[in-house]
């Protein structure tokens, strides 16, 4: 059975590693964008934690900010942890995790395509489902398009 870890203890360990960049919420860790790669690498490579499997990356648009959710799974220990990163909506940039987990490549491209969050350090940051030169990012809340305006 997948068990959730004691987030507070992990948060403490991370704090003494990287300082005040991690906040333990009831069911996820909130991480500042700058510290994301370090913390992800720490979670991946620390024996005892070794979250080797990146389950899911996605984002949500809260009209004043974006929130990215990273869901890491440790197949060895059968544990799950979720990271949440907030980033501003204008020129949103997040360091890419494609270097740590190849599995992040397509998902980050999709987020870039649909939300316009660009991932620095991604091997090829291009649109994935929409065509090049498409205007706007559909999953943003302020995205306007005829069909949807009619629908609303």
């Amino acid at each position: 059975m997948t068990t959730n870890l004691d987030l507070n203890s992990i948060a403490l360990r991370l704090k003494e590693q990287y300082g005040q960049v991690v906040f333990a919420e009831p069911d996820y860790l909130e991480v500042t964008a700058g510290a994301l790669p370090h913390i992800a690498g720490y979670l991946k490579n620390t024996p005892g934690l070794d979250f080797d499997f990146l389950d899911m990356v996605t984002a949500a648009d809260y009209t004043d900010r974006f929130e990215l959710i990273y869901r890491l799974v440790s197949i060895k220990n059968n544990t799950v942890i979720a990271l949440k990163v907030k980033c501003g909506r204008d020129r949103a940039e997040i360091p890419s995790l494609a270097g740590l987990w190849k599995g992040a490549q397509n998902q980050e491209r999709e987020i870039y395509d649909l939300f316009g969050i660009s991932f620095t350090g991604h091997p090829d940051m291009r649109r994935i489902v929409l065509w090049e030169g498409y205007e706007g990012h559909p999953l943003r809340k302020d995205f306007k398009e005829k069909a949807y305006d009619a629908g609303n």
Partner: protein
Amino acid sequence: MTLATEPFILNIGPLHPSTHGVFRMRVVLDGEIIQDVEPVFGYLHRGVEKLFEQRTYKQNIPLSDRLDYVSAINNNWPYVMAVEQLANISVPQRAEYLRVIMAELQRIASHLLAVGSVMNDMGIFFTAFMYMFREREKIVDLLEMVTGQRLLYNYMRFGGVSQDIPTEFLPALDRFLKVMPGYLDEYDTMLAGNEILLSRTKGIGVLKAETAINNSASGPLLRGSGVNWDLRKSAPYSVYDKFEFDVPLGTAGDCYDRYIIRMAEMRQSLRIIKQAVEQMPAGKEKTPTPLRLRPHAGETYTQVESPRGMLGCYLVSDGTEKPYRCHFRAPAFINLTVLKELLIGQKLADAIIIFGSIDISMGEVDR
């Protein structure tokens, strides 16, 4: 002497017999050997996640069928579970068992389709495909008995399933359970020992366990590489903890293992269905929920083991009658990350088989 050669660029798809939809691979060939691959997505992109934000919660259930049209019932599941968690709706036991039975039937149907189409790619002129469809037809009839539909069942509801099984269902299911193992044996006799098939699949498209994990592969692709990760075991949802079944694992991680694992998983699904039918309690098949449901504000992530892998649903509710954000972790889409590593250096003919053995369905990949 050496000839001056130039790369030979070939577009496989979007309209190609064996891209299982409108997938497109832009491959660079040297003779028959693939030197570079660039998968091109989006030919079936329908903006499903945006559409989810346009409709009420209940209206989204039929939409979730359309994600992976080959295993529609498995697609309802995570979405329905997510809404149930947010609105804390309780599900009757009988409904859970019905869900399991239907989902496992659907899994068998989906695997049959996957294996059959791989055989087709391999050049058995539609024979294996037809045999598998012969059995898939039986399953579809069973599902139709219950749901009234044959492809997109729209079966699950918040707090249960849309309708209870008819009286004729269980006898028919028993008949199916009796004959299906015989058919699986028939396939094994016909295919598993076939030398040409072995020489086409063994050692082809080998995926190491670390690579698979690092690429977030899941489902038969991951288990074929010997990683024991099946959500029905490792994170049992619904009532899966009440059944005993094995998780078939591969050793080499090649196309042959994936094929064998799919065959074995069908047998395991049959086991699960048997037990579910025995254990299924009487009772209501759903707890009534209002048409315009308004879950509490919050977010949740639920996931199930679909025939293609870990199918997750990340749902954010703001307390209104429409989802604020709904994201599906599509296993087929993420499994395709590994495609490039698998294909480079292989022959063109093998590329088709490897691609087929990943078993995607475009509706899920492009969403």
